[in-house]
């Protein structure tokens, strides 16, 4: 049997929870009768590629990486990543990849060295369960035999999806509840952000959902949304320091239970609602999400000043976790890209793989560039390359980008093995194939001097045969030449979702 590396599905990772979700009152929790941990242990014996989904037992202390190649002198800063790592306690293993507690990875780069540390986000949930030495709360999918009360979503906030620098702190992000404020020096959890504090909003923003995919404009302003499965979407406009400037509420009929990412242009917010619904008869938040091939994807275009709906578009049915960027042309039309799936199978595969199940024919996604025209019509082009974790240079967020970076799969397997750069100007795609022994995680561009033609692409990959994680730096102008720097940890890290670079 051919061994598969790099789940495309894994590329989709980073999708999390839209809690609080429509909840079932008076329904008896389904106990986890199958021993998922046992099944996963059996599977990992036969397939080393699963090591990135194994439980992590402790923090990683500071470790210098062994550098192959040359470390560019003009990279001096921190590369942060986040992802689920506490998948098991005792005999209990979570059933879905999105359920595990978040662990932060920090690579400090500069002066010819790269140093790494990894630390669990000590959320209230993590702290409680760490001292109890067992999971105490039902997850979105995993129901425990004995579980404690969940007063609100932050009770089970795992802070496991993304990490961004905000002011003097870092924010570790989930999507069902508050942002977790993290101390930069120690990577310690400080508190949940209360976005209305010291403002007219008071506690009215406390515990609201705050997605893991905020968009930060070149001026530093932070835009985000939060999704509640009753269909309400909160819109946030924050200062670079994380202080609330404006908040809006939009009611929709989108009640699938999960909305992961969104986009902005210089004038508008784009909420892109995929063709999914909730199966009311099914248990589990992720498990109950179904694709509806008769339901168009919907784009709600909202005015950034008023946070009110300006216009709407319907797209052919589809599903996406992630979008790279959007921009507006002079004629008022809008372009945006998505890593588009034909259905929502990917979401369920990320549960299957956690339970050690073989995935025969993994779901695939491709970059799709949509053009929302001023007259209400829509055009789109779908590229053939497999695509997940799309990213553009930070300074172009909401502005026209020439290049789109993403990871994907060249070897037709389960896992991502390659990185790509789409050039919208020349309609070309350049790529670098790590090889099928690697599981490639999100890569992010670092533009030098706000010029997307110059700079670096940085990202991690798990080398399966040697069970080590490496950090890779590419010159964006010569992507297909391969990394100019590859730096090795002596061990592997858990596969994560999203990250960001912050200059020192």
């Amino acid at each position, binding site marked *: 049997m051919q061994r598969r590396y790099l789940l495309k599905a894994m590329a989709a990772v980073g999708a999390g929870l839209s809690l609080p979700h429509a909840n079932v009152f008076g329904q008896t929790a389904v106990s986890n009768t199958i021993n998922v941990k046992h099944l996963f242990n059996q599977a990992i014996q036969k397939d080393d590629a699963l090591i990135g989904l194994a439980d992590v037992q402790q923090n990683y202390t500071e470790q210098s990486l062994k550098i192959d190649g040359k470390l560019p002198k003009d990279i001096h800063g921190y590369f942060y990543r986040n992802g689920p790592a506490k998948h098991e306690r005792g005999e209990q293993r979570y059933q879905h990849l999105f359920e595990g507690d978040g662990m932060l990875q920090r690579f400090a780069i500069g002066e010819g060295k790269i140093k790494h540390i990894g630390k669990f986000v000590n959320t209230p949930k993590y702290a409680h369960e760490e001292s109890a030495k067992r999971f105490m709360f039902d997850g979105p999918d995993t129901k425990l035999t004995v579980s404690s009360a969940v007063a609100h*979503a932050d009770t089970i906030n795992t802070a496991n999806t993304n990490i961004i620098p905000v002011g003097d702190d870092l924010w570790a992000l989930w999507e069902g509840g508050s942002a977790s404020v993290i101390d930069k020096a120690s990577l310690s959890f400080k508190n949940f952000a209360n976005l209305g504090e010291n403002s007219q909003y008071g506690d009215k923003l406390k515990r609201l959902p705050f997605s893991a995919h905020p968009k930060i404009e070149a001026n530093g302003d932070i835009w985000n949304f939060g999704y509640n499965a009753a269909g309400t979407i909160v819109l946030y406009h924050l200062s670079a320091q994380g202080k609330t400037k404006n908040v809006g509420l939009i009611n929709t009929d989108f009640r699938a239970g999960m909305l992961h990412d969104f986009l902005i242009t210089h004038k508008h917010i784009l909420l892109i609602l995929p063709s999914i619904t909730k199966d009311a008869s099914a248990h589990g938040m992720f498990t109950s999400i179904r694709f509806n091939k008769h339901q168009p994807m919907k784009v709600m275009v909202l005015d950034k000043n008023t946070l009110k709906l300006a216009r709407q578009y319907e797209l052919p049915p589809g599903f996406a976790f992630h979008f790279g960027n959007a921009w507006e042309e002079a004629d008022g039309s809008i372009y945006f890209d998505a890593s588009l799936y034909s259905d929502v199978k990917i979401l369920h595969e990320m549960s299957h793989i956690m339970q050690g199940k073989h995935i025969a024919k993994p779901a695939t996604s491709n970059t799709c560039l949509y053009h929302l025209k001023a007259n209400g019509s829509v055009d789109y082009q779908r590229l053939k390359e497999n695509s997940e974790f799309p990213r553009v240079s930070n300074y172009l967020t909401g502005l026209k980008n020439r290049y789109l970076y993403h990871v994907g799969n060249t070897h037709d397997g389960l896992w991502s093995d390659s990185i790509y750069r789409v050039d919208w100007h020349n309609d070309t795609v350049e790529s670098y194939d790590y090889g099928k022994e690697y599981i490639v995680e999100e890569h992010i561009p670092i533009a030098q001097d706000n010029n997307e033609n110059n700079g670096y692409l940085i990202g991690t990959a798990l080398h399966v045969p040697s069970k080590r994680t490496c950090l890779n730096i590419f010159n964006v102008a010569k992507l297909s030449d391969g990394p100019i720097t590859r730096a090795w940890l002596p061990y592997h890290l858990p596969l994560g979702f999203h990250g960001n670079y912050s200059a020192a």
Partner: protein
Amino acid sequence: MKIQLTRAFNTIFDNKVAQQPLSAAFLTIAVFASTASQAQDLQVEIAGISSNEGKIYIQLFKGEDNFKNGVAAAASIVDAKEGQVSVNFNSLSAGEYAVRYFHDEDNDGQFDTNFLGIPTEGYGFSNNAKANFGPPNYSDIKFSVSDENTKIVNRSTVNY
């Protein structure tokens, strides 16, 4: 049965009683204690209180309809105390009862919620019935008071 989260939270306290300024509502209903000759005393013990700030608002309901309609048989407001407080309801007639409470941490007389109706202050129920993104079922909160002259103690912990 499914209840949307936001609505569910709104129904915890957002009813006829709670829509009035709570302290007033509490005072007007606190005279319902039974005068039946055979009667029992109830002690509600609330643990896990996070601070000495503010007050604990406690409501006692007789029967499911009253609970659902928010018509309390008795109520009490006590100063919050880090750790535990006990509240007594005396001379109750036999029947089915339920208790709910919240910790008014900022002492504004309101059970505060955010823009989506999610509580931003601690709350809890009799029997330590388990909240799960909203209130438990009535069946998990209810308890019986019989004709016997013994004191009942009902213990629970605040959910913050």
